[in-house]
C-alpha cells in the first residue's frame, strides 16, 4: 500500500522522519536509524572530500619527476593521510553506515535496527575518532603510510603515530557495533513472510560484511594498540632492536586489513545486485549463488592475508599456500560477475543513472579483480609488489568498485531518502565523467607499475613522466565527475521535483512506504507473500496505475 507524499493537504500534514522533530537535540539524540544514516552521509562526505584533496595534491606533485611541489616529508604525510582518510573514514563506513543503516531495516520490513542506541553510539564513536584524526592532521599529521610498518612507525617516524593510531583504534569500534547491529537485525527483525531466501541480495551482502566487521576489526584494534604502547614505552614485540619481529606486525596488520578490503567491496556488490536486478526488471540470475558467494568471500577473505607478504622474507612455502587461497577467493567474485551479466539477458534494461553506475562497476571491478590475479601469482607479485601496479589494482576495486557502487546506491535511494529527484541529465553526465576519468587516471598506472615505478615516491625517474601526466589529466576529469553530484544532489534538496513513493516501480519493501518514510518506517507492518525481485503484479505493484499517472520523473 502506498502512503501519500508529504505536504499534500494542508492541515493533514503527515510527519516523515525528517520533519518529525526539528531541534538539534532531536537529531543528536535520535534513535532513528534513518537520521543516523543522514548524519553518517554528511560525515563520510566530508572525509571523502578531505581525502580527495590529498589525492589531488598527490597527482599534482607527480606531474613532474622532481619533488618540487611538496617536500618529500610533506608528500609522505599527504599520501599517508589520503590512505587513512579514505580507507578508515570513508570506504569502510560508506555503504553500510549510510545506505545500510537507512535502507536495510526498511528492506526487511522492520521498524528500526535491533539496537538503535548501539547505532547512535557507533555514530558518536565515529565522530570522536574522526575528530581525533583531523586534529592529528592539523597538528602535523603522520607519515608512516596507512600500513604503519615497523620499525619505522615505532621508532623512526617523527610524526603523530600514536594519535592517529588511537583514532583508528576508536574507529574500529564504530565498525564493530554497526556490524553487530546488522547481524542481530537480519536474524530477528525480518517482517512476517520475509524468509532468508526472500531477502534482497543487499541484505545478504551486508550480513556477510558484518561477519567480517565483527570478527576482523578487533585484530587491527589490538595491533594498533600494541603499536602505540611500543612507541610510547619503547618496549614491545615489533622492533628488532628490543627483541621484536617486524614481520609479526605485518602478519597481524594484514590479518585484518585484507578482510577489510572485503568489508569495503562486499556492500558495493550488494548494491550492484540490487541495481542490475531492478533496472533489468528481472530477478537476479542465480540468486542463491550470489548470496552464498558473499558468505564465501567473507570466509575465505580471512585466509589470504599472506599475499601482502610475498616479498617480506616470508617463507616460500607459506607464500605458496597464500597464493593458492588467493586464487580460490577470486572464484566467488567471478561467479557474481557472470550472474549479473546473465541477469541482463531477456530483461527490460533501462539506463537510469544508478544503472550506469552499476554497469560501470561491472567493467571496472572486472579489471580490478583480474589484476588481483596478477598480484596473487607469486612470480609476478615479486616484480609488481610495491609498484604502481598495486596502486592501480586497488584503486580499480576500491574506487571503480566501491565508490561507484556507493554513488549508484546514493542515486538509486535518493528519492526514498529525501523525497526529491535529482537531475537525470546531470546524473548521467557525472556517471560518464567518472567512468572515463577513472580509466584515464588509473590505467596508465598499470603500465608504470610493470615498468617498475615504485609507489610512495615523491620523485621518480624522468622516463616515467609522460604516463604520470596522463594519469593526472584523468584525475582532473574524475574530480569533476565526483564534484558534480555534490552540486546537483544538494540542488535537488531544495529545487528538485518531488519523487513519489516508488519512482522506479520496483518491488522492494523500501518502495512500499512513503518517500521520505515516516519515523516508524511503515504505517502498518508489511506481510511478505512474494519472492524476492517479483516485478509483476503478484508482488502488489500497481503498474497500470503507474503507467497512467506517470508522475515519476525518471527520464
Amino acid at each position, binding site marked *: 500500500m502506498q502512503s501519500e507524499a508529504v505536504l499534500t493537504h494542508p492541515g493533514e500534514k503527515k510527519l516523515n522522519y525528517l520533519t518529525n522533530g526539528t531541534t538539534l537535540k532531536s537529531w543528536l539524540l535520535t534513535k532513528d536509524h534513518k537520521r543516523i544514516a543522514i548524519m553518517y552521509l554528511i560525515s563520510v562526505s566530508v572525509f571523502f572530500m578531505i581525502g580527495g584533496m590529498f589525492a589531488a595534491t598527490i597527482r599534482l606533485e607527480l606531474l613532474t619527476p622532481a619533488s618540487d611541489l611538496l617536500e618529500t616529508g610533506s608528500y609522505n604525510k599527504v599520501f599517508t593521510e589520503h590512505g587513512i582518510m579514505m580507507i578508515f573514514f570513508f570506504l569502510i563506513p560508506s555503504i553500510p553506515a549510510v545506505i545500510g543503516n537507512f535502507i536495510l531495516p526498511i528492506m526487511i520490513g522492520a521498524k528500526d535496527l535491533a539496537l538503535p542506541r548501539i547505532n547512535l553510539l557507533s555514530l558518536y564513536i565515529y565522530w570522536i575518532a574522526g575528530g581525533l584524526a583531523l586534529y592529528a592532521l592539523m597538528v602535523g599529521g603522520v607519515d608512516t603510510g596507512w600500513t604503519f610498518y615497523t620499525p619505522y612507525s615505532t621508532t623512526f617516524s617523527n610524526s603523530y603515530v600514536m594519535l592517529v593510531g588511537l583514532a583508528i583504534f576508536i574507529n574500529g569500534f564504530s565498525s564493530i557495533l554497526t556490524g*553487530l547491529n546488522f547481524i542481530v537485525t537480519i536474524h530477528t527483525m525480518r517482517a*512476517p513472510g520475509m524468509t532468508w531466501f526472500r531477502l534482497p541480495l543487499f541484505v545478504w551482502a551486508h550480513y556477510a560484511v558484518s561477519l567480517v566487521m565483527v570478527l*576482523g576489526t*578487533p585484530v587491527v584494534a589490538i595491533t594498533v594498540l600494541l603499536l602505540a604502547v611500543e612507541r610510547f*614505552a619503547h618496549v614491545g*614485540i615489533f622492533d628488532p632492536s628490543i627483541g621484536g619481529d617486524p614481520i609479526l606486525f605485518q602478519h597481524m596488520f594484514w590479518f585484518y586489513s585484507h578482510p577489510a578490503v572485503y568489508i569495503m567491496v562486499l556492500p558495493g556488490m550488494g548494491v550492484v545486485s540490487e541495481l542490475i536486478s531492478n533496472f533489468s526488471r528481472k530477478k537476479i540470475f542465480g540468486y542463491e549463488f550470489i548470496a552464498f558467494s558473499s558468505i564465501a568471500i567473507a570466509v575465505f577473505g580471512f585466509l589470504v592475508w599472506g599475499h601482502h607478504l610475498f616479498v617480506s622474507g616470508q617463507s616460500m612455502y607459506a607464500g605458496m599456500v597464500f597464493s593458492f587461497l588467493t586464487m580460490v577467493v577470486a572464484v566467488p567474485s567471478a561467479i557474481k560477475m557472470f550472474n549479473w551479466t546473465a541477469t541482463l539477458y531477456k530483461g527490460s534494461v533501462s539506463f537510469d543513472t544508478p544503472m550506469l553506475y552499476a554497469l560501470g562497476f561491472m567493467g571496472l571491478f572486472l579489471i580490478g579483480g583480474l589484476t588481483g590475479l596478477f598480484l596473487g601469482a607469486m612470480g609476478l607479485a615479486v616484480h609488481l609488489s610495491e609498484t604502481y601496479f598495486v596502486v592501480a589494482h586497488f584503486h580499480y576495486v576500491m574506487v571503480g568498485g566501491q565508490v561507484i557502487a556507493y554513488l549508484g546506491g546514493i542515486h538509486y535511494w535518493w528519492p526514498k531518502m529525501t523525497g526529491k529527484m535529482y537531475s537525470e541529465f546531470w546524473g548521467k553526465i557525472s556517471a560518464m565523467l567518472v567512468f572515463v576519468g577513472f580509466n584515464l587516471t588509473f590505467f596508465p598506472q598499470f603500465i608504470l607499475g610493470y615498468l617498475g615505478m615504485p609507489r610512495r615516491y615523491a620523485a621518480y625517474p624522468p622516463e616515467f613522466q609522460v604516463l604520470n601526466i596522463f594519469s593526472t589529466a584523468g584525475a582532473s576529469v574524475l574530480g569533476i565527475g565526483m564534484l558534480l553530484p555534490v552540486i546537483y544532489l544538494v540542488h535537488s534538496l531544495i529545487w528538485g521535483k518531488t519523487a513519489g513513493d516508488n519512482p522506479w516501480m520496483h518491488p522492494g519493501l523500501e518502495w512500499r512506504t512513503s518517500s521520505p518514510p515516516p519515523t516508524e518506517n511503515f504505517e*502498518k507492518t508489511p506481510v511478505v507473500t512474494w519472492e524476492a525481485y517479483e516485478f509483476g503484479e503478484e508482488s502488489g505493484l500497481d503498474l497500470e496505475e503507474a503507467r497512467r499517472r506517470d508522475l515519476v520523473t525518471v527520464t
Partner: protein
Amino acid sequence: MSAHASDKFVYHEPGLQHQFDDMGQQEESVGIGMWFFLAQEIMFFGGLFTAYLVYRSKFPMAFAAGSNHLDAFWGGFNTLVLIVSSLTMALTVFYAQKSNRSAQIVLIILTMIFGATFLGVKAIEYTDKYNHGLIPVAGWNKRAPADPAAAHGEAKPCWEVAHGEEHKYVNPRGEFIWTDCSLVKQAQDHNYLTESERNGYFSSGQIDGNKFRDKVRIFYYLYFVMTGLHALHMVVGLFLMAWLLWTAWKGYYTAEYYMPVEMSGLYWHFVDIVWIFLFPLLYLLGRHFMH
C-alpha cells in the same frame, strides 16, 4: 517471529523497546548481540594470544624464567576467586528467574566482592613487580641507587646465579632488571635450545645476559598487556555489576524479565574464561625446570 501487525494501542510489556514487537524478539536480539560481541572479544584477545604463541615458541627458556618469577600462589588464588564469582553470578541469574530479589542482591554483591578481590590481588602482584624491577618500561620501576659503601666483589656471570638467590636490589634509573640466566645454561647443557634461542641469547659464543634479559622483558611485556587488558575488562564488569545491583534493587528482574541479568552473566563468564587461559600460559610455565 511475531506474526501480528503492530498497532499503537497494543499493551507493551515493561522494558520492551519500541523497535520490537514483543519480548521474545527483544530477548532473541539481545542474546544474539551479546554472543557476537563476545566473539569479537575473543578475536581481540586472540591477537595477544597469537603474539604470545609466536614468542613463546621462539624463546621458551626466557618465558620459563619469567614465568617462574610470577607468584603462582596469587595467580591460583585469583583463579579460584574468579571461578567462585562465576558461581555467584550464575546463581544470580537462577534467582532472577525465580523472582527472588533479595537473593539476587546478595549474590551480586558477593560477585562484586570477588571481582574486587581479584583486582586487589592484581594490585599486589603489580606492586611486587614494581619493587623488583620487573616492569618492562625503563623508568617505571622502583629506583634504588647503588650503595657506594657496600662491598662488591666480582659480579657473578648470569648463568651461575642460582635460582632464588637474593640480590641486593640496585636500580638507579628504574629499569627492567634480570640477572638470572641459569636456565639458559641448563638448556644449553642438555641441548634443548631452539634455533632462535641459539642466536638470541648468545654473543660471540657466550651467553649474553643482556640479550636474555631482553627476551624475558618481552615475556613481562606480554604479561602486563594481557593481564592489564583483562583487568580493564574486569573493571568494566564491576561497573556492569554496579548497574545490575541498582536495577535489581529496584526490583526489575523477575521470572518474566531477567534478560539483562543473563547477558551480564555472559559477559562475566567470558572475562572469567579469558583468565582461565591466561593463568596457565603466564604463571605455570617451566616449573619442572626449577628442581
